[in-house]
């Protein structure tokens, strides 16, 4: 999967979880929590959506590694994401 594909997937998962977030305004290297009100429930929902979209199961211990868009893309690449 290309970086662009993964970026698109993460953004889609993000806006599915929080429909009020405009994907155009997401800063790729700023933490989600700092850009918009994103709490542990939102994050869990994001993890679930990413699992569905990429097949990658993200254990709790790895959550801090997905704190921004760029970080999330990097992590999914590393774990061999397979797109839907």
């Amino acid at each position: 999967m290309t970086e662009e594909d993964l970026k698109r997937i993460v953004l889609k998962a993000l806006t599915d979880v929080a429909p009020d977030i405009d994907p155009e305004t997401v800063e790729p290297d700023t933490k989600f929590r700092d850009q918009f009100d994103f709490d542990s429930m939102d994050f869990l929902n994001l993890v679930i959506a990413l699992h569905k979209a990429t097949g990658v199961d993200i254990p709790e211990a790895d959550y801090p590694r997905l704190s921004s868009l760029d970080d999330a893309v990097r992590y999914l690449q590393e774990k061999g994401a397979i797109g839907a």
Partner: protein
Amino acid sequence: MPSLGSDMEAGTLVEWLVKPGDAVRRGDIIAVVETQKGAIEIEVFQDGVVEEFLVPEGTRVPVGTPLALIDGDAGRAGDRAPAPNKTPSPAAQPKPQPVVQPQPAGAFRASPAARNLAGSLGVDLTGLKGTGPDGAIVASDVERAAGTAKAPPRTRSRGVEMQGAIAAAMERSKREIPHYYLSGAVPLEPALDWMERRNATRAAPDRLLAGVLFIKAVALALRDFPEFNGVWEQGEFRPSAAIHTGVAISLRDGGLVAPALHDADRKGLDALMAEFRDLVTRARTGKLRSSELSDSTVTITSMGEAGIDAVFPIIYPPQVAIIGFGSIVTRPWETNGGVGLTRLTTLSVAGDHRVSNGHRGARFLNAVRERLQHPEAL
């Protein structure tokens, strides 16, 4: 029964201060009435002789109900009014015969609530057809008139409407509910440890969040502390057999809702977590159900990851308690006679002092804390 405020619907006749046969003069205090605003002495509006009491002491009657017959000069006092309505319905208002506020001659008859509503909705009462007793204009007549009138469409956004509703509720809470507050630190290592080990063996959709442990612990503890679970309505506490925990959910636009998780004490953690996650998702996408918005018997609020030690929450009327959890932080803690570190949350309880007190609150808080030390039993 006089109207002592635009929101007053009924009062209790506590004590007669005169007896039949007594002569009274305008302004004499003849009875004591109990309302939300406390005990009020009511004055007779004209001279005369007390003929007959129509309402016995201790009876609660709607505003406008005739309380006594006074044989005096004015024709109004001699009216043989119908018997007081003992089961008031909100829509119907009996013939207004206020003891304190007589109607000026020539004015249309309208209940005080209708007058107030007309004022705030901008409805002209003159010429309005009244459907109350003897053609009196009542609140529902005003509402109907406002609905058919060519009023400008409401352009306030949903967010502003919600903020207005929250404002009204919080204002009422602070006006009516005598709050007391307690807080205590709850060590969470055993609970979080247990949860993390459990989550590590499960796919994401089956994982728990600390919040659901909090909800379950509170719900279970409430079984033994009924004075924190129920509503205060019409001057008394009505405990609830069922435990429907309202959970405060922040919305990204700054709004706040606290929909109910029904029967939270009776559900296993996994089922409760699934419902909790679904509830938050629907709250944040605007798809809540009316029963979720009306059924809470208590509310739980959590500061999540906001870095806040403790919250001093405001009870959501007509509930009688609210339980708060501060952010989970790592702090020094007494461990084996020395100092170690532990993750903990500061649990706070706000109670309605008409229903519970600090001693019971302390025992309740301790019960919640104790349950969070045994996560496998949640």
